[in-house]
């Protein structure tokens, strides 16, 4: 056990050192989408993950639209391979082979990210911090898949037979593969508006950085958003830049 921890730590350190990313946030993004529904809505948006350094907590920002009001189970699956759909993605990412749980439970799959609670607008833009997932090393979540479910994840507390395995969250309404995101320096360049807004259209520029909450362990430096985020969680033809 100690050996495997040592190996994991060593790996983590090597990867960080190799990329010279010490104290540089590591970022990942999953572009989540689902099929168009009968009423014309479609689940889509971005889930971005930021980890300031190896071994630190991961900040998750979920920006989705087209969801039905209510809670939706939200998980990371072991593989990002969707070549044969759900079967090839494997189960919830669970390297320790333990029971399904909620994100704050002591016993949980690494990939158990709980529920997304959506209001009547169908748009969600939340940021929270997860202490278990990581973006680096062998147990990193890059290259795996995120899945948004139709129903609420019971966090392993339900009485359904699948509760301890999957949280019984019903069918899937959207999924995406977690990819490496560009370095923050490159993000900054990309954020420059394509056309400088004219004097008539002077508007509030999105803040360079934002701090979602004031937890001491975080010192979070969020990268620039590449595009105006609210209320559209994905690059939308934005009126400011037209």
């Amino acid at each position, binding site marked *: 056990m100690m050996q495997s921890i040592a190996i994991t730590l060593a790996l983590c350190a090597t990867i960080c050192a190799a990329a010279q990313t010490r104290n540089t946030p590591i970022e990942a993004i999953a572009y989540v989408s689902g099929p168009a529904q009968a009423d014309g809505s479609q689940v889509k948006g971005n889930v971005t993950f930021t980890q300031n350094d190896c071994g630190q907590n991961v900040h998750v920002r979920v920006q989705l639209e087209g969801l039905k009001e209510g809670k939706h189970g939200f998980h990371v699956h072991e593989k990002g391979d969707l070549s044969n759909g759900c*079967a*090839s993605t494997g189960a919830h990412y669970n390297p320790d082979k333990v029971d399904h749980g909620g994100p704050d439970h002591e016993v949980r799959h690494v990939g158990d990210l709980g529920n997304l609670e959506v209001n009547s607008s169908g748009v969600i833009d939340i940021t929270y911090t997860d202490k278990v997932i990581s973006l680096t090393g062998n147990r990193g979540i890059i290259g795996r898949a995120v899945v948004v479910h139709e129903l609420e994840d019971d966090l392993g507390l339900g009485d359904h037979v699948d509760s301890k395995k999957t949280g019984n*969250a019903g069918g899937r309404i959207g999924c995406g593969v977690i*990819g490496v995101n560009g370095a923050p320096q490159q993000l900054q360049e990309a954020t420059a508006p394509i056309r400088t807004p004219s004097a008539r259209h002077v508007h509030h520029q999105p803040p360079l950085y934002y701090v979602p909450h004031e937890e001491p362990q975080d010192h979070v430096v969020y990268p620039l958003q590449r595009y105006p985020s609210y209320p559209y969680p994905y690059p939308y033809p934005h009126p400011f830049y037209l």
Partner: protein
Amino acid sequence: MGSVKIEFAVQMKKGDEAYANTLRKALDGLGEVDVDIQEGRVIVQTESPWSEVHEKIEATGRKAVLSGFGGQSAVALINTTGSVVDRTPVQGVVRFTAISAKAPGVLVDVVVDGLEPGLHGFHIHESGDVSSGCASVGDHYNPRRSRHGSPEASATERHAGDLGNIRADESGRAKTRFVDAELEVAEIIGRAVVITASADDLGQGANDQSLIDGNSGERIACGIIARSAGIMENFKRICACDGVTLWDERNKPLAGKDRSQKL
């Protein structure tokens, strides 16, 4: 050319020795074949592209699903938007596997349909962000900050992500299998594969652009390189959330109402 073990789940009855023999005959000449009639599992050690082995198994009239590819492996689903759920005119699968646990070197197995006949540039790009489609995946993956070049060139004379060209035949299908000696699976996971409209001149063109992207033109299709199962790593046969079986997956969308089999 590295030979690699590919695992298929094949729809067969438990202990169906007669079918196992049919299968061994069908796969004769491709390489070493190991049929597990209890589990319905077939492992082929082969140098042929996976799609050929798959076609030969399905030609026996049974459904087969690739369930493991080599050791440490990765897969990218290719389409014009890069989003895994979309069905677009260009569709394809690129599989990667490490050829040895100790040395670098990645075997790349490509099948892409719907391309214009001819050569197309084929590169790994540095990021796996498809939020704006293939445009947002960044430049060629280039950790050494070197010039663009041919995949045969030395490490300092090429981008690590330069995989040269793939050739689409008259039907629009590009099918190839090659080994790249420089890459490693771990470093490309989460990045993206991009196919371009024109041929890559491998850095031999006369202009500056040739040293950047080989004049390979517009990005027409891409996909994120995702982790996938090596052989004997994934025994999942049914999707727990909605009851779709391994055999029905190919006719079902990845998400949404049409998937559900539960009432």
